[in-house]
């Protein structure tokens, strides 16, 4: 196994042309050829190199899960529901003010700020949106900036372009709040066999976000613009089932849209994704269904464990045992995503030997599909 090494042409033919791009942004910001524009990766000119970081870093080319797990977590890939888990718990920011701005318990905001306070990182790459709801990566180096980025973002964002770009500068210790595909890309950057590296050694912390899918910007923006000026949109939310709603909070109130109307804008790559819980992050954070004001927190790496323990000790976050029912439910949902993703992949390729972009032992595949 290992990571295949090819160039920008193959990135375009294998990923972009097949609509497999997750818009993580890993291929952007390192060269003049690939840029993002309104939620798309655009190749401005032809790069003729046979080996490119763009191809190697892409989470939709040769995703060798064992190699990435060994590189990031130091253990083989746990081909189970949730990946490598050191500890799983309910968590929330202790600070009421942080929680009030957050989607759930404010754990991501609290941990990011704490990592900055502790000097584990000197800057964090986060995701923000502009007045036309176009999301992008941003470098934050203080609490206010971090807090401004709080809240869920349902639109795919090329956040890692900001990592590539900003890591060129003087900053030395960077944390990234990443979706699962972005965490995969960061893991691939670490595992890259290329001599020409980006500044991945500056990456000190990855806080992963649970994710089931992300939306295409252009289609969503066009759809929403018919209902409300984009500049008036404050945030989105998807309340727990069975609401089946996509809620748009605007300056002049809330607009409820059936989730079925928004689903067509889901990026096709989300259908072949098998990672709901950001398995290659140091810690992963998501909703805790049915437990208002709390997050589910998964500690995966030693870096993650040390951060959480210190944050707990300093009273920055509070944790509580995750109820059995929640754990079971989370596992079920995550496994379902894996099964659906694998099935979609096998349907596409027509063979369980060819997993499109995934590199995963066939026993593991069988185990997950069983």
């Amino acid at each position: 196994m290992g990571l295949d090494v090819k160039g920008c042409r193959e990135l375009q033919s294998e990923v972009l042309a097949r609509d497999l791009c997750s818009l993580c942004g890993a291929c952007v910001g390192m060269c003049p050829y690939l840029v993002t524009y309104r939620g798309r990766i655009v190749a401005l000119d032809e790069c003729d190199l046979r080996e490119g970081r763009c191809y190697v870093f892409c989470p939709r080319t040769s995703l060798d899960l064992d190699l990435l797990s060994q590189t990031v977590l130091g253990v083989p890939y746990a081909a189970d529901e949730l990946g490598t888990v050191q500890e799983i718990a309910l968590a929330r920011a202790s600070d009421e003010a942080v929680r009030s701005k957050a989607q759930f318990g404010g754990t991501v905001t609290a941990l990011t700020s704490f990592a900055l306070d502790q000097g584990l990182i000197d800057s964090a790459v986060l995701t923000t949106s502009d007045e036309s709801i176009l999301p992008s990566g941003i470098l934050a180096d203080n609490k206010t900036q971090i807090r401004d980025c709080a809240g869920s973002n349902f639109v795919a964002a090329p956040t890692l372009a900001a990592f590539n770009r900003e890591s060129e500068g003087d900053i030395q210790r960077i944390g990234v709040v990443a979706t699962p595909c972005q965490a995969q890309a960061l893991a691939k950057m670490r595992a890259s066999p290329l001599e020409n590296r980006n500044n991945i050694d500056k990456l000190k912390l990855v806080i992963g976000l649970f994710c089931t899918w992300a939306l295409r910007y252009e289609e969503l923006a066009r759809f929403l613009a018919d209902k409300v000026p984009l500049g008036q949109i404050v945030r989105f939310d998807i309340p727990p089932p069975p609401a089946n709603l996509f809620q748009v909070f605007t300056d002049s109130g809330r607009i409820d849209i059936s989730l079925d109307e928004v689903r067509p804008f889901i990026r096709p790559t989300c259908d072949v994704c098998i990672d709901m819980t950001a398995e290659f992050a140091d810690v992963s954070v998501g909703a805790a269904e049915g437990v208002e004001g709390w997050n589910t927190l998964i500690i995966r790496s030693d870096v993650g464990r040390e951060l959480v323990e210190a944050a707990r000790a300093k009273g920055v976050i509070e944790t509580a045992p995750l109820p059995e029912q929640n754990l079971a439910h989370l596992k079920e949902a995550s496994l379902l995503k894996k099964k659906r993703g694998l099935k979609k992949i096998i349907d596409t390729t027509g063979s369980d030997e060819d997993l499109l972009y995934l590199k995963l032992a066939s026993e593991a595949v069988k185990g997950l599909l069983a």
Partner: protein
Amino acid sequence: MTSITAYEAGASQLLMGNEAIARGALEAGLGFASAYPGNPSSEILGSLAEVAREMDIYAEWSVNEKVALEAAAAASFAGVRAIVAMKQNGLNVASDFLMNLNLTGTVAGLVLVVCDDPSGLSSTNEQDSRPAAKWAELPLLEPANSQEAKDMTKWAFELSEEIKNVCLVRSVTRVSHARGDVRLGEPMAPSREARFAPTTLGQFTPLLVPIKHSFLHQKVNKAREIFESSPFNWYTGPEKPELLIVTCGSGWNYSLEAVKALGLESSVGILKLGTTWPLPEKLVQQHLARTDKVLVVEEVNPFLEGNLKELVGDTFATLGPLTFYGKRSGHLPTFGELDPDRVMGALGSILGRERVAVEPDYAKKAQALTGSLVQARMIGFCAGCPHRATLWSVKNALKLDGRGGFVTGDIGCYTMGLGPTGFFQLKTVQAMGSGAGLACGFGKLDKLGFDQPVLTVCGDSTFFHAAIPALINGVYNQSNFTLIILDNSATAMTGFQPHPGTGASALGEPAPTVDPEGLCRSLGIRVEVADPFDLQDTTQKLLDLMQDDSGVRVLISRRKCALVRAKEEKPAYKVRVDTEKCRGESCGCARLCTRIFQCPGLVWDDETHTAKIDEVICTGCGVCADICPASAIIREVA
């Protein structure tokens, strides 16, 4: 360049064919000259404008060839000898007027010089203009060298006045741009009694068409009579040649050289015709009777060949069977320029002789002789050319927009935008103003499933020449496109002639400036103005205009031509490459500047594997500093 009036009559002066044409006109008492620039014709009006003040005559760069011919015809109508010059494409523009002017006829001598460009060396086609003479039923002269160019032009005025109609003079690149010794005659003062005074009812109108048409035939017959004894037709060679070459213009030079190189002087004769339409039939028949084999050598189409065969068909009973060789027989190519080698090939194959071939490694030897002094460089934009910068932004804007938008092209330096230094952005190129015309059509295809953004480009001079009607059509018919006016304040492709936007006349005197921006705004068009060297702003403006997606929009991309700038200003920046920072071939750059951007001021250093600046060529525009991904190209204010 020495002025065409620098020497006295009787002296010999080395003159370019086009200068000789201009001199011939002066010797004929020219009073009025007009033209639209276009290679290979531009130097005719250029050299007349230079001496216009001294000779006290009028010369203008007209807005297009049709207006140029109309203006010259007015002078003729008023009794003033006039010349109008254009390239082959220009004749098409002028032909609507020409096809009516031929019926009404002229008063004072009116000579229309059309310079053809076999092989399209600086043209979009290699149209042979001579059939226009037959079409319009106007006499045609074809000079073969500078001396003839002068003498024929002078004589053309007399001929024009004899038959009271336009006389065509057809040159080609190798006559117009070659230099040769010319024995000068005396310049003549023009008539200064200009007055429009029709002598008959409807003289300058089509009243009555069939009668006027019959007069036209009479004029052609009169020209034919005159041609029978023209000194521009002559024969050299044996009394009874084995093969008779009938040739004209540049073909005569190639024929002479080929016959000499093969040592065929005693067996091959050459009939050199200077008056190629209408054919002097008696003269031609007399020479055809010398032989039974005829080779016709001419550029580009088999025009003379066809007319000869027509004549032979009419006189078959007297002439008897003749075998014709030339383009129809496949002995000479029907496209591209001729040269002595090709004529030798034809002679060799007809007469069974070895041809004297060019050494096979001639090109290599020539390259070795020039060594590193001459760098092999592809055709493309100059260093610091604003068109490169504009098309860079166009490319990026179209890629970012992502809806399959494209550019319809037009005629000018920027036509090279169809190639690598314009990033292959121009997808169509036809005639002057056609980019906007095509855009009008593309922009109305929405009902038929078309959803691509349409961009079109034209230069400032082309805008005035032919794009304005298309633009108005687009507004009126509510088409949907963006016109980019590449305003470099010059007619750069043809040698920096002034035009209505430059504020200068053909004589270099101040002239009113026509403002494209104001003109477009007066049509109710949304107009943006950008500096192409500001890549980001230009790209953003293009995106905004493209995404506006309703009606006609205009972006004026305004920057002086780099060559004009170099004459007027010092370079803005001193540019250098920080070789430590240059990423060269590695991932993260892959030679963007020398591989894609391709300004000739940037060169790849094979030893250091970095880019470097060719300080001799760099014009200091500094644009490359903005495209370098590593900020390795440093520009310092000069």
